[in-house]
């Protein structure tokens, strides 16, 4: 596998070329108790001449992760931006365990220097401090990086605030495959078509998207490089070609093809070649996904009379049924550690996002809307991105993996089919 340009430098190019806000606002809904969330104060950065205060982006990122509870920094007297100005007893009194301060300073060439510090308020000690010099267009990206640092310092796990998502936007009778920051900003259109596009799936290195396009008046699986735009029809056999999923090696896709029977699962090389049928079933099999170690395949099948999720070993052996509760369980997605499966569970006519602990079989329904589809895990496994419908219009939403924090991404178009990109190698 080759990479033309290093992802890190691409990010900068990409943000510089396509920086405009696509969505007006983010609606965050906290549904559960604040019990074990970390109380953190994000103090507005001392800034002049910038449209957005990075602290707003940092605070929104931390809140929507479901791991933090924001402490209001109003009524705290003069807001500190330098470490010597921080009066820890005041912030302890407000209940903060941690706090973030910072400033935005003008730098040469119309750029900005963004400095921030993270403190353990209880100990009165600094946990992190960094400085970045960027153009105005990259202030949001820096704010996401700061949120990543805060998240990692306080939880020990990587943050996902600098990641991207892909989704399909339907507008003006056309379908656009878009990629944006995880919060919906900085969207670019990767491809667009007058015919439907569905099922985007990220390659493990985040450089390519597999998806299904109906532009040939039938479903065909394409793989497209998001940086140079080059694409290839990987599965275009007689009948329907759908539901692409990347193998962890980034070289093969599992796909559902109808060339031999109604819908069966095959492995196919991304560079082309003959598909290899993985099993022969008399039923309809689709929606394959690989386990992170690449040894198991989860998929949807109606072989038992209703659509349910099954798994099979790629080393051989029979498929085993995974879901039993209810008559419609589809669209499996696995957490990056392979321990939790998210899926769509139909209950009383409503399609809901649920999770299953694969070790115990314990199932939890996370959402309470009606038309939830296409769950996709954040690369740190803490949030699930999914599509829902409000007022007849498709929207994207996230829910924390414990179900306590939900939010909708507000936007102007009709959105569906979200897929969360993997962490970039940096």
């Amino acid at each position, binding site marked *: 596998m080759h990479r033309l340009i290093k992802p890190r430098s691409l990010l900068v190019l990409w943000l510089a070329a396509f920086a405009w806000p696509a969505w007006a606002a983010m609606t965050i809904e906290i549904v559960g108790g604040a019990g074990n969330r970390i109380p953190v104060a994000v103090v507005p950065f001392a800034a002049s001449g910038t449209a957005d205060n990075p602290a707003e982006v940092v605070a929104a990122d931390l809140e929507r992760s479901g791991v933090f509870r924001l402490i209001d920094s109003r009524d705290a007297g003069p807001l500190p931006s330098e470490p010597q100005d921080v009066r820890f007893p005041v912030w302890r009194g407000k209940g903060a365990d941690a706090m973030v301060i910072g400033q935005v300073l003008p730098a040469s060439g119309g750029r900005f220097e963004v400095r921030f510090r993270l403190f353990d308020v209880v100990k009165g000690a600094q946990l992190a401090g960094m400085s970045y010099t960027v153009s105005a267009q990259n202030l949001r990206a820096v704010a996401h990086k700061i949120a990543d640092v805060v998240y990692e310092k306080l939880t020990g796990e990587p943050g996902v605030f600098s990641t991207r998502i892909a989704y399909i936007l339907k507008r003006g009778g056309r379908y656009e495959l878009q990629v944006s920051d995880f919060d919906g900003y900085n969207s670019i259109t990767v491809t667009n078509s007058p015919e*439907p596009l*569905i*099922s985007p799936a990220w390659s493990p290195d985040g450089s390519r998207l597999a998806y*299904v396009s*109906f532009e040939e*008046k*039938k*479903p065909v699986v394409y793989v497209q490089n998001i940086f140079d735009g080059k694409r290839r029809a990987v599965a275009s056999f*007689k*009948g*329907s070609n*759908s*539901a692409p999923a990347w193998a962890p090696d980034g070289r093969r896709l599992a796909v*559902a093809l*109808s060339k031999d029977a*109604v*819908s069966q699962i095959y492995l196919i090389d991304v560079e082309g070649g003959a598909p290899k049928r993985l099993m022969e079933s008399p039923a*309809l*099999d*689709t*929606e394959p996904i690989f386990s992170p170690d690449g040894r198991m395949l989860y998929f*949807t099948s109606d072989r038992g009379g209703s*659509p349910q999720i099954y798994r099979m070993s790629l080393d051989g052996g029979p498929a085993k049924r995974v879901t039993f509760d209810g008559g*419609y369980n*589809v*669209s499996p997605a696995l957490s990056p550690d392979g321990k939790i499966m998210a899926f*769509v569970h*139909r209950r009383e006519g409503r*399609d809901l996002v649920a999770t299953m602990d694969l070790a115990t079989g314990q199932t939890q329904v996370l959402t309470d809307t009606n038309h939830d*589809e*296409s769950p996709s895990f954040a690369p740190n496994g803490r949030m699930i991105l999914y599509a829902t419908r409000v007022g*007849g219009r498709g929207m994207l939403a996230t829910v924390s993996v414990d179900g306590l924090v939900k939010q909708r991404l507000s936007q102007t178009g009709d959105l*569906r*089919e979200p897929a969360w990109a993997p962490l970039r190698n940096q």
Partner: protein
Amino acid sequence: MKKYAIYGALLSVLLSACAQDPAKTGDGADGKGQAAGAQTSGASVNGVDGSLLKGNLSAPPKNVTGILAQRVIYFDYDSAAIRSEFRAVLDAHATFTKANPKAKLNLQGHADERGSRDYNVALGQRRAESVNKAMGLLGVNNGQMEAVSFGEEKPAVEGHDEAAWSKNRRVELRYAGE
């Protein structure tokens, strides 16, 4: 259960086709031969006017009337069984396609909006394959047909109730070049 229903429907399609069509020399026979027979008689076969059975058309004329103007087969929820009311439609298109070897039928399966988009591609495909199989039993050469699916992506009727859904669970018969 579902399968038996499908086979039952197919069988009755087949039987009714044979019973109603004395001109037919047998299902699976060369379409050209039948076309010639139909042409000399000048009569309609399975509701298809003899003038359309000359063997050189790629699709029925746009202004065609009668049964051949019907292009949509509807399905019950989560079912790919062909309802008896649509037998005559399939008979007519099978007769036309067999008589016109240049005609290529695109059988486009569709599902209603409920549930997973990928799963609905498979459901639509199952419906398209069901029509494909029925047409095959009526003697249409498999090379003249392709069964494909649009899943839930191209609803015929916008709406979020059974009235809309029942119009969206369908197979559309489209001829290449139309």
